[in-house]
């Protein structure tokens, strides 16, 4: 069974198509990313899957449960961390978890152990009785993830999980998310506009733009689809073009300057064998550099634009900052 299966999913707001007939599926135990710019329809897709809003047309199921007909059953097995703030900063970390363990009807004898586990797991145990408004941005985010774990969800939805976090806090959140999948087999559907985040975190990515999925596959597949990595090398004694062509697609070759550019699928693997065959032709390589293809290139190819910072992300960041300052 697929963890999530969407077929021709559409969500209209009056005459604006926020999500335009998208189809995708998420395997159990996968970390699946919806990558795209502001207003691409990622958050709307998550909210429809979470049964917060009803789709205009198309079908969507979570572990075989219909999101329209059995909304409460989907919510019972789902955890959700919205892009905005989902913890009450006027309560302590512990209370935030206790509240949600009650709202998910966790049996009384299991509550304390679940809360304790989640706090331990997210490294918040020592600050659990402090008001959440005294937490740092990274701690608030970890508390939000802990909160989403109170019902031991099979399916976890993360909307822009690392938005507004500094690089260290970001990495910590990524580690925690990965461990959830590795240790408990939780299936995770996340949205992000951060190419790097999608690359390090996701097993599979669907690139969204203007309500449509424009490309999908593993990060490696997607990067390979834009041509691959570019190797530039400099060698003066002899023409390398012939040898290089055996290893990949020659992008440019200027023997008189001794400069060559070559496109290959996996740069770091290709370099040693290229050097070896050039060596066997008695050509001495003076320097070599590798430019890996990025998801940014992928996005540029399929969406015809670069992902821009700003819009609601800026709002979300300002919001998070404002909430912290309120304390």
């Amino acid at each position, binding site marked *: 069974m697929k963890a999530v299966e969407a077929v021709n999913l559409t969500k209209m*707001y009056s005459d604006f198509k926020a999500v335009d007939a998208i189809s995708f599926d998420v395997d159990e135990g996968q970390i699946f990313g919806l990558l795209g710019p502001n207003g691409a329809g990622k958050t709307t897709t998550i*909210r429809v899957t*979470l049964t*917060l*809003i009803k789709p205009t047309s198309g079908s969507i199921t979570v572990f075989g449960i219909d999101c329209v007909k059995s909304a*409460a*059953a989907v*919510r*019972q097995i*789902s955890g*959700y961390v*919205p*892009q*905005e*703030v*989902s*913890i*009450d900063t*006027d*309560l*302590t970390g512990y*209370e935030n978890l206790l*509240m*949600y363990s*009650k*709202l*998910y*009807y966790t049996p009384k004898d299991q509550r304390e152990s679940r809360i304790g586990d989640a706090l331990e797991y997210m490294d918040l145990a020592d600050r659990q009785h402090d*008001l959440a408004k005294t937490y740092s941005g990274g701690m608030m985010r970890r508390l939000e993830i802990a*909160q989403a774990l109170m019902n031991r969800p099979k399916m976890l939805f993360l909307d822009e999980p690392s938005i507004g976090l500094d690089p260290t806090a970001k990495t910590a959140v990524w580690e925690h998310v990965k461990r959830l999948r590795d240790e408990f087999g939780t299936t995770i559907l996340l949205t992000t506009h951060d190419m790097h985040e999608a690359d390090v975190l996701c097993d599979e990515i669907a690139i969204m733009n203007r309500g449509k999925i424009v490309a999908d596959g593993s990060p490696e597949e997607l990067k390979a689809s834009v041509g691959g990595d570019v190797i530039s090398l400099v060698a003066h004694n002899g023409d390398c073009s012939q040898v290089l062509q055996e290893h990949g697609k020659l992008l440019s070759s200027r023997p008189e300057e001794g400069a060559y550019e070559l496109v290959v699928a996996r740069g770091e693997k290709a370099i040693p064998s290229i050097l070896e065959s050039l060596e066997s032709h008695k050509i001495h390589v003076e320097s070599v550099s590798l430019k890996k293809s990025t998801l940014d290139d992928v996005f540029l190819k399929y969406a015809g634009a670069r992902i821009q910072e700003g819009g609601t992300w800026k709002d979300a960041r300002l*919001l998070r900052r404002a*909430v912290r300052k309120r304390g």
Partner: protein
Amino acid sequence: MMPSLGFFRMMLASGSRYLRTVLTLAEFELRKLRHDSSEIFIRGVQPALWLLVFGVTFASIRAIQTGPFTYLQYLTPGVLAQSVMFVAVFYGIMLVWERDLGLLNKLLSTPAPRSAIVLGKALSAGVRSIFQAIMIFALALIMNVSLTLNPLELMGAIIVIVLGGMCFSCISMCLAPIFKTREKMMGIGQAITMPLFFTSSAIYPIELMPDWLKAIAAVNPLSYVIEAMRTFLIPGYYEYYQPPLLLDIGATLLATAIFATIAALLFRRILE
């Protein structure tokens, strides 16, 4: 055909879950209040002014006839009910604020039924109202206003306060999904509280009103809340006026039920 035992068991289980959701939301409202109760005092300033300035002045010029009771006795339940209304009306604004923050999305992602969330918020408003009311009650006692100290009557007053808080928070939560932004809701809050206050029997008896105002006062839930509070809080009030206490409480209950239903039906719209 008789419904099976399993059916009853299922109904019972979902009923208990429903109740647990409502009580959980109110419980955490209380916890918030325990962490920081300064708001109760800040919000107490306005009703205190009504009692200390307006009340004392009007009592001394004897402009309003209030039977055998002093004007401050008459006014205190009115100001109490007004402060309950002010606290409760804030809940619609808070709903919009929680929507903007993301808290509401998170809350709606739990299996809890929407209507249980509405009732839970309403009960939270009721619970908070109790503390607001206690503060004003204490102030009135310090001002030497003669009010009941009979625990049963006080219990009755508390029930009316909770009901009133629930009623006005539901009105406000009906409006939140329609107006949707915080700025508009702030304006709406102002725009409904003052008219509700002045068209009620809070500061003058309904008998003194012109006919058109009497008609409005008759459909104003605040009037019923205030009358029920006077019945419980002013010693001798019931014996003197024989007020229809059951009608007053029934009307408040009915208004709460109507507005809670509308709020629950409109609730989904606040996210869109």
